[in-house]
């Protein structure tokens, strides 16, 4: 039996309740420290499937701006953030670019595309 304890801080509101999640063999055994329903749900999600939206920039060739801002279209697993940043490294895109244009189709096999969040006209 593998036991694990995870301590996280709830982001549901400014209270920032410290939550403790006990995990046994990959299953949540108990959640303590929350003071509302939202906290309990946050803890469950954060322990079983933490996800984040990643945002960065990519250099633009022949654009009115030198950099275009980008994001993962939806959130991706937290443990893929670093790989996602590596996938963006050394990448360049040509102007013009519109908001929503796909920069990388399926980043790090997450099934999520990276899209532009800014329009850049051609210089």
């Amino acid at each position, binding site marked *: 039996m593998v036991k694990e304890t995870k301590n996280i801080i709830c982001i549901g509101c*400014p209270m920032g309740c410290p939550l403790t999640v006990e995990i046994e063999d990959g299953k949540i055994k108990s959640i303590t420290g929350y003071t509302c329903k939202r906290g309990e749900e946050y803890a469950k999600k954060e322990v079983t499937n933490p996800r*984040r939206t990643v945002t960065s920039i990519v250099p633009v060739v022949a654009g009115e701006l*030198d950099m275009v801002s980008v*994001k993962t279209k939806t959130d991706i697993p937290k443990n893929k953030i670093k790989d996602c940043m590596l996938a963006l490294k050394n990448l360049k895109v040509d102007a013009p670019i519109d908001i929503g244009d796909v920069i990388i189709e399926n980043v790090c096999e997450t099934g999520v595309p990276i899209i532009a*969040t*800014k329009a850049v006209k051609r210089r």
Partner: protein
Amino acid sequence: MINHDIVIIGGGPAGLAAAISCYENGNQDIIILERDNSLGGILNQCIHNGFGLHTFKEELTGPEYAARYVAKVQSLGIDYRLNTMVIDISKDKVVSSINETDGLMQIQAKAIILTMGCRERSRGALNIPGYRPAGIFSAGTAQRYVNIEGYMPGRQIVILGSGDIGLIMARRLTLEGALVKMVCEIMPYSGGLKRNIVQCLDDYNIPLRLNHTVTKIFGKERVTGVMVSEVDAFRQPIPSTEEYVECDTLLLSVGLIPENELSRKAEVAINQKTQGPEVDESLSTSIPGIFAAGNVLHVHDLVDYVSMEAALAGKNAVKYVQDLLKTGLSIVIESKNGVRYTVPGTINPDNAEDITVVRFRTSDVYRDAYLSVYLDDERVMHLKKRILTPGEMEQIVIPKKWFAERPNLKKITIMVEKE
């Protein structure tokens, strides 16, 4: 001299929302003057997400939020000038500005909306001893370098102050390969949003040192390190706690100050607590016909509230031009017992909307306390709050019927109460 009904100073989120509101409330003779080379203001460099949850019910990045307002302004055909620096506003509402094509431009306005935003508190305001080496940046300047220009400000970074921009930059610089050694916060609590503490610091194991500050900066040509000290209850550094931290860059995220040089030139009265103009329910300043909204008025946490506030200022500027804003006796809003200030500071019941939103911040952290509203001596609102913190703006809503029911009302008091 050029004439326009309404001149809007600044094309950031507040200016854009104010302009759209003016147009939609029936006045199309508007011009926005923006000093940068694009509309959208500081949102253009805030590439992280989390904007627009209230306005659009979805999470957008800063540039996406700005783009929606810019597209609206452009589709309505609202006039704007970029690269245009406003250098003076007179109290009779002449706006002087300069740019490369128009040269000096003087506009006689009927109404002006101040939406200049805020700027960051700088090193000079902190009195940290040391030389003046390269490598000391405000967090927002670093944000511009990284996100707009594509340059890294440094490799080993200490951040002083835990404001949201500092937290966001801790994550951003880490993702770009820098080592963020710590974030020091002189207060016992962070001024940033909880979500940013978790997702920008905890996610990357960046330590947040509460009750700590930077007491010396080392390096002559370039920053080589900083001295970090713990502070006592009076926020004085404790000498025995000094710790040398090697770094090549110090970012400052130590507060934002509304940018009111132009307002002062027009002799608009400034509130000492907010450093923004004194305004009434219509967001009119002390000079009739000059309105203010957004971070120039008081520093907000969420852009959604900036947009809402600016829309109200736009609506009232239109009313002012139509001579529909009443003058007369106003009810004073007094802030006390932990309520640091309120915006607005007065309400004229004749001009009040069905509800007046009063925004404010508390001066300290309060747990399990009550927010109370008194009309003269009568307590009419008593809201239990599990937490109140200076880092999060609060608001209460005052219905217009309260005024009709109490024709002799003199004062509204908003305060924090223990029970």
